[in-house]
């Protein structure tokens, strides 16, 4: 495995921004990391890039545990490059920027020239080689920054929202470069994005981060909803003609009329003991499938919409759900994330 994370946490003050129980990332693959703002995507990428240190837990890279001493980190950083969401170019020309990493690695001038030329061509910036970096547009800066990272032929390229704030033409160029470099150089790529469609188009694997934790079932429990404001600061989220969830208005404040809703399968309560909880929604559903899933049990339910939920083994033993059973489920407000429709 390329990366292995176990019980890894990153804490700022008293706020846990990242809490990953277990994650393995395979080499030579493209991973996409999706999740709303503040989900911990950048924090995770920084840790994977060895630019930040986890507060606790274990991280291993290429089968070796990572020691967070400066010398060891410097060696690891030479194999992993991170592309910032809003990259910054050094003062100087485009050429000097792309050449930077090769210069500090003392790559001979002839090789440097060949590699920089090739990379500028890959990102479509060969005509800009002698341009002052300060005169470039946002999309061009991203392309040069991508070339500056890729010219180093890293084992891993980490990109934080590489297509954010970039026009369509530049987006295509960036995505094409990522695909090509993965195919030709076998570079492992992990990139975060707001767009599920973009992630699914490029990535071999999708990771969904919510509130700093990984959600196992990325792609499941995602619904396009119509929002209808109600009295008492509540908003009705209509999943289908028959199925709706009532949410506090502040949980949908960042969305427009048409939004997407993700329900965290870990937070759905099956057959709740308390039937009068007020901080969520109750639904009835029929158990359609049961499967073992990484130390837990995954249950597929038909509640008018297809819903997945996960139970711990202890919880499963206690509840003893049976296929075909009709059960009450409770979806707490905390288990629901509403985003604009163009998000996933």
């Amino acid at each position, binding site marked *: 495995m390329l990366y292995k994370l176990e019980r890894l946490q990153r804490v700022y003050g008293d706020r846990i921004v990242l809490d990953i129980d277990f994650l393995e990332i395979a080499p030579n693959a493209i991973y996409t990391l999706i999740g709303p703002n503040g989900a911990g995507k950048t924090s995770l990428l920084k840790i994977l*890039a060895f*630019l930040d240190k986890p507060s606790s837990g274990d991280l291993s890279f290429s089968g070796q545990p990572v020691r967070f001493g*400066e010398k060891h980190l*410097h060696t690891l*950083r*030479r194999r*992993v*490059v*991170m592309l*910032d969401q*809003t*990259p*910054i170019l*050094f*003062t100087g020309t485009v050429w000097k920027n792309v050449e*930077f*990493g090769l210069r*500090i*690695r003392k790559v001979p001038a002839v090789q440097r020239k060949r590699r920089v030329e090739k990379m500028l061509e890959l990102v479509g910036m060969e005509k800009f080689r002698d341009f002052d970096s300060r005169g470039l547009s946002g999309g061009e800066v991203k392309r040069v920054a991508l070339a*500056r*990272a890729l010219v*180093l032929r890293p084992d891993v390229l980490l990109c934080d929202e590489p297509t954010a704030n970039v026009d369509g033409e530049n987006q295509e160029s960036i995505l094409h470069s990522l695909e090509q470099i993965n195919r030709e150089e076998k570079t492992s790529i992990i990139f975060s994005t707001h767009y599920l469609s973009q992630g699914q188009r490029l990535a071999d694997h999708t990771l969904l981060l919510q509130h700093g934790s990984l959600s196992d079932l990325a792609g499941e429990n995602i619904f396009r909803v119509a929002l209808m404001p109600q009295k008492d600061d509540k908003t009705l989220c209509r999943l289908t003609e028959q199925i709706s969830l009532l949410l506090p208005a502040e949980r949908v404040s960042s969305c427009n009329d048409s939004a997407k809703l993700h329900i965290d399968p870990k937070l759905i309560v099956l057959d709740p003991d308390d039937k009068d909880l007020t901080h969520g929604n109750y639904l009835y559903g029929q158990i359609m499938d049961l499967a073992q899933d990484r130390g837990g049990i995954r249950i597929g339910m038909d509640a008018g919409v297809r819903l997945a939920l996960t139970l711990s083994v202890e919880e499963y033993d206690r509840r003893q759900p049976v296929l075909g059973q009709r059960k009450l489920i409770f979806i707490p407000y905390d288990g629901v994330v509403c985003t604009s429709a163009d998000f996933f």
Partner: protein
Amino acid sequence: MLLDSVQSAFLLLFSFDPELLEIVGVSLKVSFGATLIASFVGIPAGFIVAYSVFPGKRFLLTCLNTLLALPTVVIGLFVYSFISRRGIFGSFDLLYTQKAIIIGQVILIVPVIMTLTIAAVNRIDSRYRVTALTLGANRFQMALVIMKEARYGIFAAVIAAYGRVIAEVGISMMLGGNARGFTRTMTTAMALEYDKGEFVLAVALGITLMTFAFGINMLFHFFQGKTGSDAL
């Protein structure tokens, strides 16, 4: 009287009076020497302080800011106690030499260069640091990147320091002794001429000093402007 003095001063200036040229030469030489040494000390030290986290950093910054207001006579007195005949370094015969002035002036401007370097480095976008590291730079290479990005701010620090030493009088007088042709600087010469009631040379030196000060300020604002435009 002032108009007469100014007229005579200009005549003196344009006649390239040897005494005046000598005084200006000594002033430039010691100020340049002091600024050069203080830059070698102050720029790396400022950089290290800016990029390090250590207990007492805030206290150190407070001390450095306090030292910016340190009167030149206090430094003169302090250095005098070390280099006078009975001082620890008395045997080096430094008192009333250009070296003594330089030592005092270095002490005067190291805090200036350090604090302005710290401010210049702190203004640099933190992404430069992270980008350099992720591209494989070690700590030293990362420092060079930051230095390059902060260069205008650092130049401005050096120029401000040069302006401070060329215009100071306390250290030059106390440690240099105002010896003609040797340690007489523009400011000490002006003070002496004033005492003598001879305004012509004092005014000529004053004009020269003001011209230098103006030039230095022009340079300072040029680099400050560069820093500002870079930040946009």
